[in-house]
């Protein structure tokens, strides 16, 4: 097993990234205790796994990157975390993230932005940017993140690591602080497909504490295949628009060529409602968020922002001062689209569009396609501050990832090349609960694709 001190040293060494919210002293102490208590028979015995700060742990605080939960210690732990510990893994601190997982750059954290591990002027992606940056920097082999619209796959692509978003209902959401409950899933980062997949297999499976978690056995890991013979891979034309970054296109073309060489049948397909995915997401997710975040009122959790004379002004001042600008914006948008007179025009319409987007995927899979291959993000990591003033430009960073969340499908991002030293991610989207096929194809592609070569 890895020595607790060595684990902590590696994490503390990556301090410049601002990726870890746990103070070094507390981290060292906890890792010592955990490593003494870890079950030597567990399949992840001794493996350090960093955990995004919106997932409840008994070790360390759970702040969701927000002032409104500053210092909050959860009195219970997430099922995913309990399963990791039962498998012998070490909870290697809590990672910085966009406040309440709202953002695509990890610049919207109350505890400062996270630095990209390869270029300090750039963002690591988000919202699980701290987890991605730590895995990218080699500080931990794996980390947990969470996905509502691409918050694992997008930072995985930016940081040159593997990120998996499982099927909705594959992993229990118990203990994952709710943002958009019909979209949220805990996801996994790994340095390799295998590291990510074996953590996923441990945290997956039924949980009586989450009724949206399917009554299924944990995921069984596939073996590494010799070829992709028999796989039909679809290339959705809407994900390869003319304005796609040329380097991203070159890296994708190379990966597609390699899948063909491995024996996969590749064909162009169409998911016609894709252009509506981002607007659909930015109605549904804020609507659910405005409802979920109503619980932070200064009464039951975290700090209370004072100057309040009565209960109403206590709510308002706590929420006004406790939430950052992006969260406030989304609460307001969500409240707006759910308010009387606008519900039909926005929320109902978005729900209908979500159904059409899910139907697009079913149509393609019903016609014999096993998996879809797309770029994960339209461009490599952008510069810090570049998109802060323009929320819509920031939202567009999720254009190729939100569809899988809306349709509840599993998807994986893996590094497929670099442009001027910055990683590019390729995405495989699978059919619901067929993560094993998706991981099998990712294993095969990972073996041949020159992930760190210029595209």
């Amino acid at each position, binding site marked *: 097993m890895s020595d607790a001190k060595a684990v902590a040293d590696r994490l503390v060494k990556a301090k410049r990234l601002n990726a870890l919210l746990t103070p070094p002293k507390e981290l060292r102490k906890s890792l010592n205790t955990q490593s003494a208590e870890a079950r030597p028979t567990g399949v992840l015995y001794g493996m350090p796994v960093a955990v995004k700060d919106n997932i409840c742990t*008994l070790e360390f605080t759970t702040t969701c990157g927000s002032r409104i939960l500053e210092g*909050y*210690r959860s*009195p*219970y732990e997430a099922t995913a975390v309990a399963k990791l510990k039962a498998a012998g893994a070490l909870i290697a601190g809590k990672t910085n993230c966009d406040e309440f997982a709202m953002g695509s750059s990890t610049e919207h954290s109350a505890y400062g932005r996270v630095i990209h591990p390869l270029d300090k002027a750039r963002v690591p992606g988000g919202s699980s940017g701290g987890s991605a940056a730590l895995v990218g920097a080699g500080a931990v082999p794996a980390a947990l993140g969470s996905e509502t619209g691409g918050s694992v796959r997008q930072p995985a692509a930016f940081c040159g690591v593997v990120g998996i978003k499982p099927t*909705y*209902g594959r992993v229990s959401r118990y203990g994952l602080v709710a943002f958009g409950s*019909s979209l949220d899933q805990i996801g996994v980062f790994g340095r390799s497909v295998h590291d990510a997949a074996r953590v996923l297999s441990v945290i997956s499976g039924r949980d*009586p*504490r989450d009724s*949206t978690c*399917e*009554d299924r056995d944990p995921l069984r890991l596939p073996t590494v295949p010799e070829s992709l013979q028999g796989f039909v891979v679809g290339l959705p034309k809407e994900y390869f628009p003319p304005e796609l970054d040329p380097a991203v296109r070159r890296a994708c073309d190379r990966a597609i060529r390699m899948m063909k060489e491995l024996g996969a049948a590749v064909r162009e397909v169409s998911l016609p409602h894709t252009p*509506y995915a981002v*607007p*659909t997401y*930015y*109605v549904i997710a804020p609507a659910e968020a*405005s409802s979920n975040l109503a619980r932070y*009122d*200064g*009464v*039951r*959790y*975290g700090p*209370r922002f004072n100057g*309040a*004379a*009565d*209960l*109403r002004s*206590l*709510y*308002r*001042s706590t*929420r*006004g*001062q406790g939430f950052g*600008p992006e969260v*406030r*914006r989304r*609460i*307001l*948008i969500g*409240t*707006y*689209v759910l*308010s009387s007179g606008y519900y039909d*025009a*926005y929320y109902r*319409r*978005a729900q*209908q*569009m*979500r*159904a*059409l987007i899910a139907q697009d995927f079913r149509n393609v899979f019903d016609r014999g396609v096993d998996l879809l291959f797309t770029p994960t993000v339209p461009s490599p990591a952008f510069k810090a501050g570049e998109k802060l003033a323009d*929320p*819509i430009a920031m939202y567009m960073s999720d254009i190729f990832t939100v569809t899988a969340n809306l349709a*509840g499908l599993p998807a994986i991002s893996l590094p497929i090349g670099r442009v001027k030293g910055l990683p590019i991610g390729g995405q495989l989207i699978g059919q619901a609960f067929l993560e094993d096929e998706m991981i099998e194809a990712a294993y095969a592609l990972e073996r041949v694709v020159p992930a760190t070569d210029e595209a």
Partner: protein
Amino acid sequence: MSVSREEVLRIAQLAELDVDEEALPTLAEQMSRILDYVAQLSAVPANGTVKVFVPGPDAIRFRNDEVVPSQLEFGPKEFAPDFKEGFFVVPKLGQFE
């Protein structure tokens, strides 16, 4: 679609959220742009027959009707802003005094 300052304030009130006076113009402008952007959904013909898509299990599973204790590691005293004698303590509701 343009959102006025007054509308932002009305929505903020519904959301129980204080909004800074200085932040209002930017917020109104950003909300207008976001709502304009998502309004493209209304360009697609409405289809009343589309069944709403909900991911996850088709039916709610019920647990056995048994009491299974779920012990918290520590009580609300440690995570609540103020907790006394089994109650969450909040400011007085002045107008009812």
